[in-house]
């Protein structure tokens, strides 16, 4: 299993049949964005903590992706450690260290919320719904669609190079970086060749930019989507407005 394939399993979409996956992607995008923004307006680690817990519950019960989210956080461990150390050295205060850490984690979880539960097809439908030009949403679509292919090709390239003597685990840091050239160049060449073929394919499959397009599938909001976003908004706004100062003073003592 190649590096790309491992990484893509950790950071990209994988199909599951649960509520979270069936929600309208626009709703999830809205919530993600709101969370990403609110992170800058709420400093209180307890409030952030509450929001995180609601998200974790959501991931577990509504989505069954909890393990994946936790694993993605694990892969970010170096950054997390950096945040903890930098902030502690700057403030020598636990609360002031915890706050940026938790806010960063909430941010990551907000991103995961959208990207882990939205299929490439739904993602392109979302871009279309946002009235982006078809060329942009098609470009994203194609990029996502070919990630598994790229992963497989990289795997084949690595195997071919190893089979003619390339040793990826030997040498100093400079040698190891240079050893990426025999891996990257074939990959790039293959990608360029592919994009030409795909461009041909788009033409002969009838792509007519500028002509009115009848989309086969569009996104439709349902009752569940409305319920989800309303409940989510209530929780988020509540956290923003409510005063939890008394509780914090107690904690500091």
């Amino acid at each position: 299993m190649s590096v790309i394939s491992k990484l893509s399993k950790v950071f990209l979409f994988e199909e599951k049949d649960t509520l979270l996956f069936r929600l309208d992607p626009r709703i999830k995008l809205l919530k993600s964005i709101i969370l990403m923004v609110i992170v800058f307006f709420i400093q209180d680690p307890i409030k952030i903590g509450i929001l995180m817990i609601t998200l974790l519950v959501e991931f577990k019960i509504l989505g069954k992706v909890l393990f994946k989210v936790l694993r993605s956080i694990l892969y970010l461990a170096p950054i997390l450690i950096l945040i903890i150390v930098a902030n502690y050295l700057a403030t020598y205060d636990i609360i002031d260290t915890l706050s940026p850490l938790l806010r960063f984690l909430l941010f990551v979880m907000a991103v995961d919320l959208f990207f882990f539960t939205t299929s490439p097809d739904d993602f392109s439908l979302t871009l279309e719904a946002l009235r982006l030009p078809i060329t942009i949403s098609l470009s994203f679509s194609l990029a996502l669609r070919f990630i598994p292919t790229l992963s497989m090709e990289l795997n084949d390239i690595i195997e071919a190079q190893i089979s003619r003597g390339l040793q990826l685990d030997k040498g100093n840091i400079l040698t190891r970086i240079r050893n990426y050239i025999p891996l990257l160049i074939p990959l790039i060449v293959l990608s360029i060749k592919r994009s030409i073929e795909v461009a041909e394919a788009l033409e002969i499959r009838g792509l007519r930019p500028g002509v009115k397009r009848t989309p086969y599938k569009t996104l439709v909001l349902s009752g569940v989507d409305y319920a989800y976003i309303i409940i989510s908004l209530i929780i988020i706004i509540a956290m923003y407005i409510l005063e939890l100062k008394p509780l914090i003073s107690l904690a500091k003592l």
Partner: protein
Amino acid sequence: MHLIEVKNLSFKYQGTNKFVLKNISLSVRNGEIVILAGPSGCGKTTLARTLTGLIPQFYKGEYSGNVLVCGYDAAKTPISDLASCIGYLFQNPDNQIIMDTVERDIAFSLEYRGFTREEMRNRITKILKTLGIEHLANRKIDTLSGGEKQLVALAGVLVMEPKMLLLDEVSAYLSPRSLKRLISIIKLLNKEYGTSIMLIDHRLDLFVKVADRVIIMYDGVIYQDGDPQTIFKNLINKKLGINIPTIVKIYERLYLRGIRIDKIPLDHIELADIIN
């Protein structure tokens, strides 16, 4: 008027010195199954590109002559319009599949043609049924096998109901089983819908039993054009780089030993009959 009419076609890719097509003329009628065979580099794919309009619209170069498909000038008519006449299937089906799931990918071809969603759904259902891939409708593309991907790519092209199917070297990476299935589908399409088929391939051995007509290309010109029997008789002792069926090769060797047989056997059954 024929489905395809090519007159005095010559073409040289931009930035190269050599003419890949040299004064080619040919025509294809409705309902014909034709094999276009020839060694690598003889110009088969280039010719296919001129039929779909990819040359000269996508690939520039020096172009002279005339190509009419379904009556349209292939050099001037937009490629997406020509797609309703000729459906082109690549060697590598992966690069022809645009969307992430099967059903949505097949729909892609129809979204720019002014159909209602109802009409699209009908066409898609029909093509899934014809090709026997209804069970794949909601599958993700990267979970499909090579043969299945080829069928999905085929569906995406057939759904525009072209009058002719152009298959470019599809034998290269398909397993024998998938190829057999593809061939029976081609025969069905030709028989029931009158779709013309052009198979571009150097593996004559795989397709010779399906074809009405064989066109041999060599170094940019049409070397031979006729029914399989005549073509094979004319190919005796000539090395052209195409894969002739083993049984025909045996006929050739026997011929060189002085044995004369009227009709060239195209498979083992015909040869067995001759022996008896």
